[in-house]
């Protein structure tokens, strides 16, 4: 922070986008895997 202006901060930006991508990817993959299991079980 310098004179009321946030300076730098790219590492936080990268971290926020990485966390977002990771959460969406992991949740999406687990959903599709769980769905496949349930579809196999119901056949």
């Amino acid at each position, binding site marked *: *922070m310098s004179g*009321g*202006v*946030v*300076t*730098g*901060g*790219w590492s*936080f*930006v990268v*971290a*926020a*986008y990485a*966390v*977002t991508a990771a*959460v*969406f990817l992991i*949740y*999406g993959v687990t*959903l*599709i895997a*769980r*769905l496949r299991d*349930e*579809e196999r*079980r*119901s056949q």
Partner: protein
Amino acid sequence: MKRAFPLGVALFAVAVYCGLIVTAGEQYLHADLSLGIPTGIRTLTAFLAGLAAVILFLGGDDLTDSSKPKILLGIGVAFILIGSYFGLFVAPPEQYMGETQRIMYVHVPTAWFALLAMTIAFVSAIVFLFRTDFKWDARMEGSIETGVVFAFLLCCQGAIWAKPTWGVWWDWDPRLTTTAVLLFAFVGILALRKFVDDPVKRGIWSAVATIIAFVDVPIVYFSVKWWNSLHQQQSSPDTVSKPFWIPLRANAFGILLLMTAFIMLRARISALRLKHELAPPPLAEAQLGEVV
């Protein structure tokens, strides 16, 4: 019902045209694609058409086909990639928050759609209580779990943004506190569903709990207006500079489709689990065969 999905896609295209294409045309092609429609009306049309598309996608889904949510997932990812490219490399840094403001392009849509997912859970809970149709119980479970994932992500993104701007990862400010309460309340409902074996009791109890927990959703939204909060107030198209519109809106459309697809996929899992739960055990079937 068969026409719900294509109609939803058409409405979503209208929302994207009004909310994104016209702005992109103005900024990057210097072309007026507005068809003479004022900005305020276009923004309202984008909002209502997007919402109607989600209602059609979810309401028209009979929970038997998993290809439609996968299509929405693919389109949603494409929007997020475009929005993130503009957010990280094209949009200028903000005057006071500098580069950290780029976090807003993922944080703000995540907040919107965490609250929307919990609102869908609330509506599904009410419809389930009135109709006792287990499709709505499946939609309720799908939207609760999606809402929890989005609310958890929201808290992580918020903490990462808070550290360089506020100097702390977390503050017990009204917006953050009410969001944490919302997250734990809906996690509690998912836990409740795990502990109840009877599908009818599970549906009714979790629907009632969802309606009670939903009370916190408007409190989260209005907390920044009702209390003197460290968290800034909501922005509107009038208070956001135009160079920030493209990444924010592209990510918003993408995350909206992701939320919808996640709810549809999770609801289908719930519906299949219920079918398995209600199926007679193999022994009973064999005994029935002997009697017949």
